[in-house]
């Protein structure tokens, strides 16, 4: 299977100017690649830099050094050096991000929140909402909530709305940021199925999954992030 994503010598640190300019090293010399149809899971304890790596791939955190290369057809894009509008385009059609935290928008209904990424890719609103409803059904979000804005939903309901939003569209690369955290067993199983369907469609995935059972079911490979630990500046 072709390589979809390649991180080459990626490094990241935070400079905390409000704390006297102290530098917090995060990761250094990160190097791995992910193939189409493969799910690579980042392993390591909290604070090892797993989330920072995902956020750099999504262009949400800046990458201080190295390259984050994404293959789109014959083209290779370096996320680490891409213009903002190129990153926005990548997020529209190439890289998806599934997280548990929903950023609610006033007055937008749950089904529209879920349908939005598909509409952005050019699917008709009608078809996108239909697909949104079927995903919300699969994730056991009660039908009476679909037309309401999710701001007042419970934490678990918001989480499932956001998972539906993350899975609805096709992206060649999908980033999974603890999508199953605090889900019940039934919904966890749904997410595992969704991930397997993405694999069959050839999607390359990078995930953070603390849940041991889920990890065993969907990880093709574990990448130990502690191997990329940055040296603490003296």
């Amino acid at each position, binding site marked *: 299977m072709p390589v979809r994503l390649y991180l080459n010598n990626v490094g990241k640190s935070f400079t905390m*100017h409000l704390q006297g300019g102290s530098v917090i090293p995060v990761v250094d010399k990160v190097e791995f690649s992910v193939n189409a149809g493969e799910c690579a899971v980042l392993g390591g304890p909290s604070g090892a830099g797993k989330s920072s790596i995902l956020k750099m791939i999504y262009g*949400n955190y*800046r990458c201080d050094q190295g390259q984050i290369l994404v293959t789109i057809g014959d083209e290779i894009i370096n996320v680490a050096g891409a213009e903002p*509008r190129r990153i926005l385009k990548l997020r529209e059609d190439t890289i998806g991000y599934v997280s548990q935290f929903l950023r609610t*928008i006033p007055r937008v209904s749950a089904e529209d929140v879920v349908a939005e990424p598909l509409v952005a890719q050019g699917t008709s609103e009608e078809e996108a909402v239909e697909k949104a409803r079927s995903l919300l059904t699969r994730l056991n979000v009660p039908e009476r909530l679909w037309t309401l804005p999710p701001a007042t939903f419970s934490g678990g309901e918001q989480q499932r709305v956001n998972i539906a939003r993350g899975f609805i569209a096709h992206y060649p690369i999908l980033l999974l940021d603890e999508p199953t955290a605090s889900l019940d067993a039934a919904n966890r199983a749904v997410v595992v199925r969704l991930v397997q369907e993405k694999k069959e469609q050839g999607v390359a995935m990078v995930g953070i999954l603390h849940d041991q059972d889920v990890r065993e079911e969907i990880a093709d490979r574990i990448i130990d992030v502690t191997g990329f630990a940055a040296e603490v500046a003296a």
Partner: protein
Amino acid sequence: MSLFQADEPLLQVHNVTRYYGDRVGCADVSFDLWPGEVLAIVGESGSGKTTLLNCLSTRLAPTAGAIEYRMRDGSMRNLYQLSEAERRLLMRTDWGFVHQNAADGLRMNVSAGANVGERLMAVGDRHYGNIRSTADAWLGRVEIDSDRIDDDPRSFSGGMRQRLQIARNLVTRPRLVFMDEPTGGLDVSVQARLLDLLRRLVADLGLSVVIVTHDLAVARLLSHRIMVMRHGNVIEAGLTDQVLDDPREPYSQLLVSSILQV
């Protein structure tokens, strides 16, 4: 379909500088704005945000630098070399300007319908029935009831006035809209409604927007890109969520860490 496919920028800003006597209003600002892109300019009071916005919108001539705009015929023109007639036509048709204080952008002593219709008349529409029905449709889009069309904006609440101002600006289908703190001074529930409305209209119409705000939540919700200004300089710029989630400059970090969490 996608907002990010246009291959030519709509606005190109080159080293724009504005002095007030010896004091710097804004210094050496350069950026490109693309079709469909929303750019937020953030920073504290006195940072030069509004000076820059006024320079961009030809309301205040820069001391140095150049601003080029792609006209509807595709040609790139230096804004400060346009004739007065060309500049006025641009401001009345292809551009909008949404003021913080709606009274600055509306005519307070004529009806809501006339406020919207006036811009249509300015571009040559003369058919009363068409103007009225277009005005009515736009009042609907900004969620103002038809039965208020003959009332003048003095009888409107702050939120309604702001929505009316937006309708007045958008009725000529502009391609570029400048906004100066459009949600400032409104209470939060009114703000949320206005923001949602703006977000939808901007996306539906594919508008390019330059919005000045000191509210980072507004910037996060509406903008693709952010420029942080301080003492007249752009100190940090980039993708909105990148600047807000991973701010690099000391002042940007201070701004982001000063947001109250609800």
